[in-house]
C-alpha cells in the first residue's frame, strides 16, 4: 500500500515537474512593455494624476477589482468570526501578566508604527506603498497592543465601526464617480492638483486611505478572533 502511494506521488510530482520545466524552458525575458502596460505608462500619469502607476492601476483602472478584493477580505473576517464566536465559553485560558519591558516598549512603539502605517497609505499615490501595505502595518500595531495588554478584554465595537464606515465611504465615492464624473470609482470628482504633490490624483488618496483603514480593521478583527479563542483543552493528548 505504501509502495503504491509513493509511486503515485512520484508520478504526479514527475508529471508536474515536466510541465513546469517546459514552461521554464519557453520563458523568455521581455524587452518591451505590452500594449496594456504601454497605455498605462503613457496615459496613466495624465489621466489619473498619480505618480505611482501601480496605484493608478489598483485604485482607478482596476478599482472595481480592488473593491471585490476588499469584500473578499471582509468575508474572510466574517466567516472566521462566525466559526469561532459560536463556541466561546468559560474554558478560556487565563493569560499571565505581560512583562514590564513589553508594556513600556509597546507604549513607545505603537504611536510610531501607527504613524508609519498612516504615512504609507496617505502617500500611496507618490511612493511605493498604499492602502494594503499601510493597513497591514496598522494591524501589526494591533498585535503589539494585544500582547502588551493581554489581561484586558478588547471589544470589537471600534474595529467594526471603522470597517463599516470606511467600506461604506469607499462605495459612496465610487457612486459619486458615476454622478459627478465618467463612471464608477472615477477619481476626477476632486481636482487632480499638482502632479507629484500630496494633494494630487483626485480621489486616489482618499480612496487609498479608506482602503488602508478597512484592511487594517479587517486584519485586526481576524487577529483578535484568533487570539481570543485559546482554551485549556487545546493540547494534543
Amino acid at each position: 500500500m505504501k509502495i503504491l502511494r509513493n509511486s503515485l506521488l512520484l508520478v504526479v510530482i514527475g508529471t508536474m515537474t515536466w510541465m513546469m520545466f517546459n514552461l521554464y524552458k519557453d520563458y523568455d525575458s521581455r524587452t518591451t512593455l505590452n500594449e496594456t502596460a504601454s497605455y498605462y505608462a503613457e496615459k496613466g500619469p495624465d489621466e489619473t494624476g498619480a505618480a505611482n502607476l501601480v496605484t493608478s492601476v489598483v485604485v482607478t483602472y482596476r478599482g472595481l477589482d480592488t473593491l471585490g478584493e476588499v469584500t473578499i477580505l471582509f468575508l474572510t473576517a466574517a466567516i472566521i468570526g462566525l466559526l469561532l464566536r459560536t463556541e466561546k465559553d468559560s474554558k478560556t485560558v487565563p493569560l499571565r501578566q505581560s512583562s514590564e519591558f513589553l508594556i513600556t516598549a509597546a507604549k513607545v512603539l505603537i504611536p510610531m508604527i501607527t504613524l508609519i502605517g498612516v504615512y504609507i497609505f496617505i502617500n500611496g499615490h507618490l511612493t511605493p506603498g498604499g492602502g494594503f501595505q499601510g493597513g497591514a502595518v496598522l494591524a501589526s500595531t494591533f498585535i503589539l497592543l494585544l500582547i502588551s495588554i493581554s489581561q484586558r478584554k478588547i471589544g470589537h465595537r471600534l474595529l467594526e465601526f471603522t470597517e463599516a464606515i470606511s467600506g461604506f465611504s469607499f462605495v459612496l465615492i465610487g457612486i459619486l464617480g458615476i454622478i459627478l464624473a465618467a463612471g464608477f470609482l472615477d477619481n476626477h470628482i476632486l481636482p487632480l492638483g499638482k502632479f507629484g504633490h500630496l494633494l494630487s490624483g483626485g480621489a486616489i488618496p482618499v480612496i487609498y486611505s479608506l482602503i488602508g483603514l478597512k484592511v487594517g480593521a479587517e486584519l485586526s478583527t481576524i487577529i483578535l478572533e484568533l487570539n481570543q479563542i485559546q482554551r485549556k483543552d487545546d493540547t494534543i493528548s
Partner: protein
Amino acid sequence: MIQYLEIEYITVFAGFLLLMVGLWGIISQKNIIKMIISFGIIDTSIHMLLVAIGYIRNRTAPIIDSAVSKSDAVDQITDPVPQALVLTAIVIGVGITALLLTYALKLFRQNKSLEINQYNSLKW
C-alpha cells in the same frame, strides 16, 4: 547559456522550484498545519513568478519622479500590471491562510487530532 544567470531567469526558476516543493508538501504531508505551510509556499512562489514575468532588465520601478519623466516612461519602467496583481494576491493569501487555520482549529476541537488520516468520514 549565460542568460540563465540573469536575475529574472533565476527568479522564475526559483518560483517553479518552490511551486513544486509546495505541491509535494500538500499531497505528501499528513499533518494539517504542514499542509497549510505548503499552501503558503505555493502562494509565495506564484508571487515570485508574477513579479519575474513583469520584470524588464535595466528598467526601474513604475513611479514617475525625478528619475523617470512622464514622456519617456514607456522606455524606462517595468510592467505595473503584474505588480498590482501581486499586491492584491498577497492580501488574499493572508485571508485564505487565516481561514485555513480556523478550519484546522475547528477540526482539531472535534477529533483532537491534526493528522489528516483521522478524518475519514468522506472517504469511500
